[in-house]
Structure formats: C-alpha cells, structure tokens
C-alpha cells in the first residue's frame, strides 16, 4: 500500500562525506519534491521536478543536488554534509503542479557526526 517510499528511514553520515537519500513512488505522479524539515520547524522546499524539468529554490545551497532518472525515482545528493544539514528529509509527489494534493513519504532522518 505504500505510495511514497523513502530509504533509508535513518541515515548517519560523517561530516563532509557525501550521502544520497532515495525516494520512489507507485503513484505515477508527474511532480516530485524534496523538503528539508529541521526539528520543531516546518518543512522547507529544496527543489522539485516536473517530469524531467528541475526547479531549484533560490535559497537552496549548492551542496544539495537532485536526480530523477525516471518517473518513479528521485534522489537527493548532499555533496558535503555539514552539522547544520542534520534534519528530516521529506519526499513528496503530486499528479500535477497546480492545485494537486501532495503525498508525502515517511521521511529520512539524517544525522551528521
């Protein structure tokens, strides 16, 4: 029944060591989003893909990259994690961009040591 799947649920990485988080969806939605949510804060949009078109938020650090090799999968790459990047990373999908419910995955909690 899982519709938006995120792996792993918990990830520990070392300061400066590249890490990749993955998201997959069974909904065949056109749009996939990555959000960062720090403790006791609201989710903050990092970027999204509309099909193959990548849309980066203006304030997303260059340290964060994304790949979408096909409709079902989307990856978040953090090239050199800092302590401030420790957070919950949420993947979401929607059928279309406008007025369309976003379905969230359970998130990956990233710890940076």
């Amino acid at each position, binding site marked *: 029944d899982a519709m938006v799947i995120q792996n792993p649920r918990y990830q520990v990485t070392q300061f400066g060591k590249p890490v990749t988080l993955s998201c997959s969806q069974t909904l065949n939605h056109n749009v996939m989003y990555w959000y960062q949510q720090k403790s006791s804060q*609201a*989710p903050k949009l990092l970027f999204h893909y509309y099909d193959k078109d990548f849309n980066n938020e203006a304030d997303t650090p260059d340290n964060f990259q994304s790949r979408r090799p096909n409709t079902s999968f989307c990856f978040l790459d953090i090239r050199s994690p800092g302590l401030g990047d420790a957070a919950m990373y949420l993947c979401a999908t929607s059928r279309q*961009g*406008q*007025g369309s*419910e976003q379905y*969230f995955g359970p998130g990956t909690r990233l710890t940076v040591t």
Partner: protein
Amino acid sequence: GESVGLHLPTLSVQEGDNSIINCAYSNSASDYFIWYKQESGKGPQFIIDIRSNMDKRQGQRVTVLLNKTVKHLSLQIAATQPGDSAVYFCAEQREYSGGGADGLTFGKGTHLIIQP
C-alpha cells in the same frame, strides 16, 4: 520575504470539544491552501484544501475557512479525538498559467494536544 505563519504554537483542547487552528498568510498571490497533519516521526498527511476562489470547504469533521480580505486561514476540527493530537501545518501555493506552480510554503505549525 512573504511567508505563511501561525498565531499559536500549542493548542490544548478537551476530548470531544471543537478546536480551531489559525493561520495568517502574507502572499496575496497564493491560489491554493492546504492543511496538513503531522504525527511524530511521520510525513505530513493531507487533511483538506481550498482554492482562493472559495471561502469555505468542509470535510469529514474538518472545515477550512479562507478570508482573503485579511489573509487568514483556519482549520476547524469537530469533536476532537485522541488521534487528532499532532502538529498541524497550513501551506500555500502560487500557481502559474500553463499548469506550473511553486512548491508548498509551510507555516510554522501548531501542536494540538487533546486532553482526556
């Protein structure tokens, strides 16, 4: 910059009572508003949405009200249950002609506590 914000960080209500969670937004260009519920350790879960051309929408035990004049959004939960305990976020989205849209901008969140 423009943002979506909430008035109260924590709201405590008795089980069975009605609750109202408020949200103020400042982006007058927003077209679509959504309420999400987030339980500890889980991703946000869609509750209800409303478009900018509406002022009220009802779901099962929930009602969303939109007042564009004062840029205010509220979520009413009727007959609260223990399972309603969670953090509630409002979110807004701006849309563009041709089908595109921004991602969601979330408000700060309100922690709803249901007391037995």
